[in-house]
Structure formats: structure tokens, C-alpha cells
């Protein structure tokens, strides 16, 4: 994406995904999970990757972290550049170095992401000792500091406890603490609050925002929740069937969505502050990735679909500074009232 497309300054963004293609070789065929995904995030910026299940948003994150199961996953094209360096072209050692120290990840389910047989303290300290060469004492002190940072009360006691002794919200905080241990520059949060109660969710999102601001980290927030996105995102990339269908800054996106899918998603949400009679729905179902429709992948469900949409895959239409939409009629959509 060029400068006009992303609205970024000429130096390379902190983390950039460029034209990523990933396939899954399954027994039933080849699933085209990612079909040319591109997005970027800078220091101090929050990029939200919005999509439903099957859109490919988590797979992209896993590809960035290098934790995809290969096989059955195969990266068939594109680059992932961290500070200009293509991670897909480097050796495993460098990849491991970048992982956690450059780019760290926080998952949805802390209970399965944390190892149940080791204490939380051990899991944090291990990273510090192995990667930064700290002594046990130094590591322990730092671990307690990190737990304090994420506002876990009684950090000194908690550091010796096991994951199952924490409540859901606290486990998530512990996972965030773990991810910050090596001072990463980019944090990827994959549905970090989906499994949490709404009051806990609010606490965690506040925490993430604070930490990000303090450390000037780039934050990639992967979610399906339009509400959460509206509250924290600077820029938003909307994904559908393994493609980015729209890319814009948060205010513009919500004011005037430039892609029918985005528009339809917003209209189908029940809103806390609005009460309507009937919700507009998106008819049909997301496509099977084994069998993505020809042309625009959204056309079977799109109210605006024309003949062109059935045959031609839409390329990114520029809608202004830093705005892109992969729809043949993007301009019309944005201009319409």
C-alpha cells in the first residue's frame, strides 16, 4: 500500500503485512484462508481487525507470529515486514527472536494459553531468564513489577500461584503481563475480551489502552465486536473471506462505511443507545473457504450486487487519505446519504 493509501509517513511502518496468501490443505480440498491481506500498524497506533469467524483475522495474526500449523497451513505469497525486515524470509532463530521481543500476542482464552502446571511467576520469569539472561532474583522482581503493572492486587503472593487460581479477568491480565515481559514494540490481541464479562472487559480494554499509550506500542486488536472497536481503534481493517474489504480510520468508517459488508454489519447490530423495531440482517451465510464464490466474495449476500460483482474480483478503491474499499461501487456507497 502506498503512502496515499495508508496515510503513513514515508518510513516503513513498524509492522506491515503485504499481500499475504495462506492456504489450508485439508482432506476435503484446499481452503484459501487468506487471499492477499495487507495492513500496517505504527508505534502508538491501534489497528482493529474486524471480522466474523472464518474471515481469516486470527490466521493473519498467527502468520505474523509464526505460529501457524505448517502443514496443513501453507504461506503461498506475500511478505510480513517488521521494521522493514521480511519475517517470512528469515531463519527460525531470527523469527524466534522477534517473537515476544518484537511482536507479542495475547489470546482469547487465557486458561488454555497459560500452562496449567507452572506458576504464573515461573512462566513470566522463564522468558526473562532465557531471553534476557536475568538471574532468578532479578527475574522474580521484574515479574512482580509486571503483575503490578497490570493491576493484579497482591502481586507478590499471586506470582507464586497457578493459572487456575486466578479469575478470568485476572488471568487475562496475567497473560498481558507475560506478553509485556520482553518489552515488545507491537502487541497483537486476538479477541482478548470475548470470553469475559462486560465489566471485566471494560477494565481490560482500559488497561490495554493505558499500556499502549505509556509504551508507545503498536496494538493490533482482533475482534468481531463493533462496540469495542469504536472505543479504542484509530484505524480499522474489515475482513471477509480472507480479504480486507475495507480499510479506514475509525470515525470515517462509522460515519459512512465504504463497503456493503461493513454497512450491513453495522445495521444488523442491536445498539444499546437505540431501540429499533426490526434489525436489518445479512441474508445467507459466510462462504466456505473451500469454495469461495467467483468475483466479489460477498456478492451472494450483497443487496447491491450487480453482474459485474459475480465475475470480477474488486480491487482496492481509494476513497481518500488512508481509506480503501474493495467494492466496485465504493464511491457510490460513500457518496450516498
Amino acid at each position, binding site marked *: 500500500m502506498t503512502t496515499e493509501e495508508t496515510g503513513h509517513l514515508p518510513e516503513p511502518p513498524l509492522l506491515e503485512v503485504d499481500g499475504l496468501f495462506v492456504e489450508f490443505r485439508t482432506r476435503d480440498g484446499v481452503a484459501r484462508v487468506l487471499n492477499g491481506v495487507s495492513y500496517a500498524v505504527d508505534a502508538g497506533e491501534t489497528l482493529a481487525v474486524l471480522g466474523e469467524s472464518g474471515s481469516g483475522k486470527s490466521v493473519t495474526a498467527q502468520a505474523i507470529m509464526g505460529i501457524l500449523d505448517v502443514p496443513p497451513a501453507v504461506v503461498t505469497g506475500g511478505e510480513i515486514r517488521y521494521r522493514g525486515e521480511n519475517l517470512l524470509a528469515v531463519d527460525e532463530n531470527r523469527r524466534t527472536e522477534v517473537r515476544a521481543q518484537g511482536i507479542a500476542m495475547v489470546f482469547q482464552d487465557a486458561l488454555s494459553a497459560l500452562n496449567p502446571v507452572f506458576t504464573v511467576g515461573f512462566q513470566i520469569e522463564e522468558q526473562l531468564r532465557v531471553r534476557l539472561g536475568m538471574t532468578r532474583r532479578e527475574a522474580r522482581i521484574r515479574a512482580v513489577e509486571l503483575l503490578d503493572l497490570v493491576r493484579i492486587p497482591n502481586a507478590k503472593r499471586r506470582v507464586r500461584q497457578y493459572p487456575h487460581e486466578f479469575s478470568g479477568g485476572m488471568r487475562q491480565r496475567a497473560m498481558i503481563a507475560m506478553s509485556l515481559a520482553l518489552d515488545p514494540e507491537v502487541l497483537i490481541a486476538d479477541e482478548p475480551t470475548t470470553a469475559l464479562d462486560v*465489566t471485566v472487559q*471494560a477494565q481490560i480494554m*482500559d488497561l490495554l489502552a493505558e499500556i499502549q499509550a505509556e509504551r508507545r506500542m503498536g496494538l493490533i486488536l482482533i475482534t468481531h*465486536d463493533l*462496540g469495542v472497536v469504536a*472505543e479504542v481503534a484509530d484505524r480499522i481493517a474489515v475482513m471477509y473471506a480472507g480479504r480486507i474489504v475495507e480499510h479506514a480510520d475509525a470515525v470515517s468508517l462509522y460515519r459512512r462505511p465504504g463497503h456493503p459488508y461493513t454497512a450491513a454489519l453495522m445495521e*444488523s*447490530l442491536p445498539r*444499546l443507545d437505540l*431501540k429499533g423495531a426490526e434489525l436489518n440482517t445479512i441474508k445467507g451465510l459466510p462462504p466456505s473457504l473451500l469454495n469461495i464464490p467467483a468475483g466479489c466474495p460477498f456478492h451472494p449476500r450483497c443487496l447491491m450486487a450487480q453482474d459485474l460483482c459475480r465475475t470480477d474480483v474488486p480491487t482496492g478503491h481509494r476513497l481518500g487519505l488512508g481509506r480503501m474499499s474493495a467494492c466496485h461501487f465504493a464511491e457510490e456507497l460513500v457518496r450516498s446519504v
Partner: protein
Amino acid sequence: MSDSLTAEPILEVRDLVKHFPVRVGVLFKHTIGHVRAVDGVSFDLRRGETLGVVGESGCGKSTLAQVLMRLEPPTSGTFHFAGRDVFAMRGAELRTLRRSIQIVLQDPYTSLNPRMTVGDIVGEPFEIHPEVAPKGSRAAKVRELLDVVGLNPEHLNRYPHQFSGGQRQRIGIARALALRPDVIICDEPVSALDVSIQAQVMNLLAELQSGFGLSYVFIAHDLSVVRHLSDRVAVMYLGKIVEIGTEDQIYDHPMHPYTQALLSAVPVADPTVRGQRQAIRLEGDVPSPVDPPSGCRFRTRCWKAQEICADSEPELATRGGHPSACHFAEERSVVP
């Protein structure tokens, strides 16, 4: 959502309590405490209305659903359906009651028997209650039900795994509808579905309500979803109802601090209100239902807590507008 609300409530719940014993021991188990999942809940449901029940995990709303369906025996309290005492019913009488109150469950992937065809699943209510439909007419009724919930009636020979999550949920709704109940308890019916599918199922539930004259108890944790379908809303915390009122009253004029905090925490899909909302953030976690705090259960996380809150438990009483359970109930608008 309804237009006709008659005075006589169709459901009356009074002081419902459900405690689960915590048992330890290998050979001879003994009880060391109780999980006080539902600890004194009272409410009415009027014909044709939807009562939303919201709360976070551990508040007891799912247990409430189980007890109302008599899937779990109550510890104490009363429950009347159209004036009849449900908890006193046994055997055939209870079975007959089941024709009037049904349930839609949360998980579309485990709520349908994978070994049965969809036709069998939706037709099973007729097998259990043969007096409702004579054998010859059952197939037609099953088709009709599938059609009503928006599925192709020709698919009744298919198996659940051949359907998507949203479609499976529709099958579950068709099954609940088969005996033409008066009340359907919806236990988180859309929580496991994708956002774009949630809207479809919610519209369906609304349609069915007006089409069949149903009354719903709609249990969910998503406040926006609940608002959309409910006439009245009850907010639960640690086994008790802390506030109850019309949807308007609860969302626009909340009185209980917990309700206010809950509403404040729900993200609003509008970036322009960022920073404009009053963010009420609760500290800490929900206390354990085995050992709830004395007096008001919410006091450990409440910014208004005083001594009286620890000494005496506030009753659910009308304190200006609608009932809430707080010594210092005060209206505060939180939703922009």
C-alpha cells in the same frame, strides 16, 4: 415486544432459592458449604411480554432457567404458572405443564442430538405428547414448524451437522414451538452465534412472539441484545435481582450502582462519543457465590458503600420510579 398485556401474570415467581451443596470426601461425602446460585428471586411475567434477565457470569441467571424448567429441583420458593403451583406438580401433571413452558438453549452444537434427523428432533415433542397431534398429522406439523422458523421443510431428513450454527438454533426454536407453549425461556439463545446471524435469529424470535402470542423470559449477558427484545428487564447480581423495571427505566434511568456500572461498561459503536461517556469502572472481581458478602452483596465493589450496606441487606423496593435494591439508589443516566 407486545401490545396486549393483560393484568393477570402468567408466571409468578416468589422468593426462589437454589443452593448447590459443595461436597467433599471420597467414600462418605459430606457437605462443607453451598453455592448460593439463586438466592431469593421474585418476579412476574405478563402474557405477551418479554422479560429480559441480564447479569454477568455467576449471577445465577442460567440456574434460574434450569429451576423454572424444573430441570433442577428448587431449594425453596414458589412458582405459579397461570395460578397453578408448578413445584407441587408431579408425574403426568408435570408432563402436561411442559406443553406450556418450553426452553431454547444456548449452544447450537450440543442442543441437538447428532444421531437424529431434524425431522425426528422437531417431531419428538409429538411423540412424547401424543395427545397433541394424531400420528397422521405429525409430518405435516413438522414441515410447518420448519417453514415457520425459516428453514426448508424438505430438509427434514438431514442431520444437525449438515446445518450451520444459526440454522441449528432455528431447529431448536422449532422444537420449542412444537407444542404451542405459552411461555418460552430463552437461555442465551444468540450468544454463540456470529453477529450477522444473531440479528436473523432475534428477528425470528420477535416475529414468533407476535405471531404465536408467546411470552418470553429472555436471559442474556449482552445488554444491547436484551434491550432490543425486552419490555421489562431484571438485573441480577450474585443470585439476586438488584433492579427491575421497564426497558426504558433500566437503560435510560438506572438506579442501582451495579446497573449503572454495567451499562457504563458496554462499548457503544460510535467513535465520536469516545471520552464523552462517564466511565464507571468496577474494581476487583465478582465475589464467590459460596460466600457472598454480608448485607448488600455488591458493597465490596460499590463506590457508595457505607456501614449500613454491610449490616443490612437492602430490599428490592421501589425507591422512586421502579424497584431497586440499594440503600442509596439514585438515578444516573449512563447510556449516551
